[in-house]
């Protein structure tokens, strides 16, 4: 019964990250990442696709569903939101404040938690779902989704490879169901809404923005928020407000090529000789 399903309010976390196709660099006093050549994190495309599919299954924007792409970062980070709007997100939110650079996961999750509430009900409410990628492809700590779940007191399902929202006909409760695959087992999971879900790159095939999507994106709203809008003290964020600090960083010495041989029919034996000489067998 399509019409009986209540619409979902979904916030998707998106991030503008340096393209991993190229070498990446840390620089400056805070050892922060050089963010030129940045793109929408590939792993966030799966999160957005998952959100769009859930909303479309319930009638999309016309039926009152909402899909908001949310990012935090400097001026150029809005490009991640714009790409998300081209792919189909209904609206965007960009948190941009001069105090933010150098924020660690704890400070980032503090700001995102306030922004999620702001994006939904002017600070009062929670969305039905927060959807994130399995990891950012820059910081790679995987801390932010779990910390956001903790701060917002949301049930957390991470690394989902399948995802559905199910309406329980008996008591009207809405739950999210997911599957995830560990190394030694596969689990099915269920959480009541509101919940936070992170999805893997197995969850779906993200759509490409088409011409219609690109044109439509120009008319969509991107709300820019400052820390003041969110009621956050700048002393709680940035390098000074973070709970961790980077004291030093250095590129790993480049690996140099070692011995290269061409197989003359005995390379397998030569390999074993090499492993024996390295005391690896």
């Amino acid at each position, binding site marked *: 019964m399509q019409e009986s399903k209540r619409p979902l309010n979904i916030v998707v976390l998106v991030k503008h990250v340096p393209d991993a196709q190229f070498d990446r660099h840390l620089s400056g006093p805070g050892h922060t990442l050089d963010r030129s050549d940045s793109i929408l994190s590939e792993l966030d495309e799966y999160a957005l696709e998952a959100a769009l599919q859930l909303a479309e299954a319930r009638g999309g924007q016309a039926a009152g569903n909402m899909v908001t792409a949310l990012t935090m970062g400097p001026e150029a980070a809005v490009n991640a939101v714009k790409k998300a709007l081209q792919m189909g997100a209904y609206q965007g939110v960009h948190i941009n404040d001069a105090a933010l650079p150098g924020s660690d996961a704890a400070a980032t999750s503090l700001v995102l938690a306030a922004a999620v509430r702001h994006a939904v009900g002017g600070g009062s409410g929670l969305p039905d779902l927060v959807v994130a990628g399995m990891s950012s492809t820059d910081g*790679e700590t995987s801390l932010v989704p779990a910390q956001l779940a903790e701060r917002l007191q949301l049930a957390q399902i991470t690394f989902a490879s399948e995802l559905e929202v199910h309406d329980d006909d008996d008591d009207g409760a809405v739950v999210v169901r997911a599957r995830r695959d560990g190394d030694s087992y596969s689990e099915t999971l269920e959480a009541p809404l509101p919940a936070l879900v992170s999805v893997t790159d197995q969850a779906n095939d993200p759509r490409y923005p088409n011409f219609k999507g690109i044109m439509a994106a120009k008319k969509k709203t991107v709300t820019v928020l400052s820390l003041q809008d969110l009621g956050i003290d700048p002393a709680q964020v940035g390098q000074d407000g973070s709970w961790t600090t*980077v004291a030093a960083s250095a590129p790993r010495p480049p690996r140099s090529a070692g011995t290269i041989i061409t197989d003359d*029919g005995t390379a*397998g034996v030569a390999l074993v000789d090499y492993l024996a000489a390295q005391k690896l067998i």
Partner: protein
Amino acid sequence: MASVLVFIDVPGLPLPRASRELLTIARGLGEPAVASPRALDDDVLQALGAYGVGAVYEPEGVLPDVLVAAKAAFLADAVRAAEPAAVLLGNSFEDREVAARVGVKLNSGVITDAVAVAPDLSVTKSVLAGSYTSTCRVQSGVPVITVKANSVEPAPADAPAAPERRRLAVSHAGPAARVTGRTEKRVSGRPELSEARVIVAGGRGMDGNFGPVEELADVLGGAVGASRAATDAGWIEHSAQVGQTGKTVSPQLYISAGISGAIQQKAGMQTAKVIVAINKDPDAPVFEIADFGIVGDVFSVLPQATEEIQKRRS
């Protein structure tokens, strides 16, 4: 001396190498104590004692079978009880999430992917998929640190301790996802990819046949890895994927078979101690970082190596 609390989930016997590594690191920093989310058998307690563990914190009852939230609530309670100088966890996805939530509960900084922890609790970690090394510090609360496997050589204590059990009443976990079903996968007998000391990984060049990769991995006691091309093609399960969007690994030996070595793949394994690469294409980028490279056909080189190892051992 202040304690260092190590979170160990399900430490069956023998104690996994990764757990023994954490206990060894903890002993170098203070007096090791363990927080275990379920009650431990006496023989496990004794095995922990051999690593110098003086106290084991356990929940008073059975924790609910929910994702992360209950374990995080328990560990936060254990930290409040133990008042340690630092908290150490493994670097698995779940351990990092437990660390993440404990950090918020205790206003404590969390550092992941540690490869070394100094006596002053400054942490060396690898970042940007192993292309950089950084030194970090926690500047708020009790440092919560997740440590990568293969970071130290595990060593028992000079004198074993007799750990004291301390049972904790655990705070409410808050909203959480329930586990509604769990299917064990076929047990391969191989080590976990993220903890393995030897990994043999196959890529596009395996052309759908991972047999030679698996046979060499088994004769070396190693794990099987794969490039994204190989997992996307369905030749091997997705959890075997090494690289930017899969697992980052740092084994003693990484053998790359039929993988060209695009930057994302390299990113996942460039902290391996020794890299061996086998590829038909002499221009494959993987040869730029290989300690030992073979330009040749994986279907002749791998079986020959497997056979040679078996011959030398017999």
